[in-house]
């Protein structure tokens, strides 16, 4: 191949926006299907109840109250992000940064709390199918929340340096992932409650 090119061609701004939107949506579709597979798997094992061993006496669920608090924090984080993002998406506006910071802190706190909930699940061996599903749901949620928090930190770096201007679409596409994380985590938590 000929690599003697001395010029780069910049991509048009609207294509940059479109590809960011499409890329994040693809990521969400893929991840949502993984979540769906876990939920379907959990429901399937519950329905089969193989040899009556799906859930036996002594099997327990993740702590309810901390889980509820995590979900409340997540919903508030989503709403706070939405409040900030509505303004930040508009050109020449940076949004109301405290709302972003609130969303980030809540997401970070939720991630840490969910990790603590997951780590506190000290199931005895053998871990039965019910507890296996709960373990997977809890850790899967924790990983999602921590991932969203890391993305939020990176976005926070951009905002604090004032480099969101001209890249407002980043607030929008991070928002897609942010809202998806909230919804997916809520779904997994509700499903865990349903299994209980």
């Amino acid at each position, binding site marked *: 191949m*000929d690599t003697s090119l001395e010029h780069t061609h910049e991509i048009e701004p609207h294509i940059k926006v479109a590809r960011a939107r499409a*890329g994040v949506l693809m990521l969400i579709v*893929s991840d949502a299907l993984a979540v769906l597979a876990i939920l379907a*798997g959990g429901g399937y094992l519950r329905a089969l109840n*193989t040899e009556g061993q799906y*859930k036996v006496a002594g099997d327990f669920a993740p702590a309810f109250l901390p889980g509820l608090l995590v979900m409340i924090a997540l919903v508030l984080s989503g709403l706070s992000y939405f409040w900030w993002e509505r303004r930040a998406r508009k050109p020449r506006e940076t949004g109301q940064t405290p709302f972003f910071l609130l969303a980030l802190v809540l997401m970070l706190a939720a991630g840490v709390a969910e990790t603590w909930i997951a780590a506190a699940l000290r199931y005895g061996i053998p*871990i039965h199918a019910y*507890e296996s599903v709960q373990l997977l749901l809890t850790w899967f949620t924790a990983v999602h929340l921590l991932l969203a928090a890391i993305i939020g930190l990176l976005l926070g*770096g951009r905002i604090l340096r004032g480099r969101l201007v001209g890249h407002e679409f980043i607030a929008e596409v991070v928002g897609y992932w942010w809202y998806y994380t909230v919804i997916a985590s809520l779904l997994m938590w509700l499903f865990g409650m349903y299994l209980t």
Partner: protein
Amino acid sequence: MSDTISSTTVAAVKRPNLINSLFPSVISGIVLGVAAAAVAGVLVNRMTTAFSPDSVPNDDAVTAAVYTAWVLFFFIGIGAFNGVFKWAFGRREPTPAEELQLAGKDQGLWRYFRFTTDHKVVGMQYLATVFVLFFFGSMGAFMIRLEQSRPGAIFFNPATYNTIVGMHGIIMIATTIIMVSGPFGNFILPIMIGARDMAFPRLNALSYWLLFAAIPIFFSTLALGGFPTGWTGYAPLAVQELTPGMDAYCFTILVFAVSTTIAAMNIITTVMVMRTRGMTWGRLPILVWGVLLSVILSLTAFPSFIVSQIMVLMDRIFNTSFFLAASGGSNWLYEHLFWFMGHPEVYVIALPAMAVAAELITVFTRKPLFGYRLLVGGLVGISVLSVIVWGHHLYTSGSENALVGPYMLDTELISIPTGIFFLVLVGTLWRGKIWLTVPMLFVCGLLVNFVIGGITGIYLADLPTDEILHGGMFVTAHFHFTLVGAGVFGFFAGLYYWFPKMVGKRLDPLLGRLHFWLFEIGFVGTFTALFYAGLQGEPRWSANIAPPFATPNLIASLFAILIAASVFTFIYNVIHTLVLGERAVANEWGAKTLEWTVPTPVPLENFEELPVVTSLPYDYGSPLPESPVTPAADIAGAITQAPVQPQVEE
């Protein structure tokens, strides 16, 4: 200047010295990855020993830590994250010079060993990897045929034989998944749609190097006791199997699935947003449709496979019970999660190959494609139906009777859109001026083999016949006719067709014909014999064949010698062409798709000015001066100057 170019920047490129060239590169990646894997292994070994009540390390946890460290630090070492955090934190955007450096500017052949973002480099990396994996997979096949050439153990004990069969299966499945979408989807597809690169060039390089990182993990299974489950990795055997080779298998699948998912996201986004002006959905070349639908299927199917492997690893490392019946788990869960990926994966392999056949048949009959929209509809129909048929793999597993009827029906419905594919291709051949080149020979081979694979599939879709044939050699022969007959023949058709554009040299047509005939005769002979053995009742997964099946197996093994000869003929042809081959012209076949309008070798960013597309690229019935693209001056010139049937191969 085209509207798509908002500005052009002159880049002051720093010429790399030796140190800059070597680091970061695949060498630094391997060094750092291996070192980190060793450290992680020692640390986790000590930690698990310390926390274990009986002071025994958790081998599965150690294996998991080693492979995680290998992948992560390999990517740090190869420079995949260089500049990413600066960009992510908004400290600064990459300069045009850095972009060009990353795209491999003036780095010669060494750019193929670096984290290079140019889609053509990534395409060539995929192509080289396909060659290597295909060679190893083929060697596995010949070892199998050698062992099965007569009854009794000849060379291998049953455990070694199982590992060889499993490795052959995984290598070939992975290779055929990337066979068309990897090399041609990366090199050709962006040019075909009039784009300068993929939507996410860094992700493109990432997807390839993830595949690369998975290869040593996979081959490490040999040193870790192998995996006795075969390519499907069925649980609970995968959970109960004590060798760490099974962990290596799970990690291979995870890394490969993530690589495929990233590639799928990138290709879908590229086709959605990077098409040039006038390249409407109704004007997309068929190859683009085939690859697009294939990767959409990947994106849909692979998450369940990823989840299944996470569950297996959890069962192995943390003693959970997703698949252990004694603790409320179920093997059926694995089978559902696996086959929800496993059946669409057949079409992940077949769709791009079918699209290659359709793409080429218009060029070599000099006719418009018969029923373009019909064919696109057929391919979409196959894609949709393929995700709802996985239950037919569980007929004999004791699944609910009420599900059998619907699964039989929807499996058989796939015959309709597949039949449309054949109708369109035969309709295009009808009264065409057929130019029987090497690519066209492989297209004809694909049509013959895929018909046999498709028709024999009907017997496996129907419960009454499947009850008899399931788990036998008939199934082996059927899926080889489908995956090799369509996937591999489609790949070779595409390779002989696009090789001149990708490499700048023309593969020797005489050796190409020899390759085709050896392969076709050997392939049909081998697997027809196995159809017969299957009908006689020979089971699969048996290391030693029983005496009643000796004759068909001997015939199959003798025909396999022809396949082996075809592989070596092909390797010789590639090496001979690279060293002594004739230079190719820009439009080798007088074709009308956009990749033939750019110079050979293809420059970085492909187009100086982006073309505007005004029609489908298959209007061979029209007078040649009517080019499907503008700007017309140089591009139409390239097309009109190309002979209608250039480079006669006799």
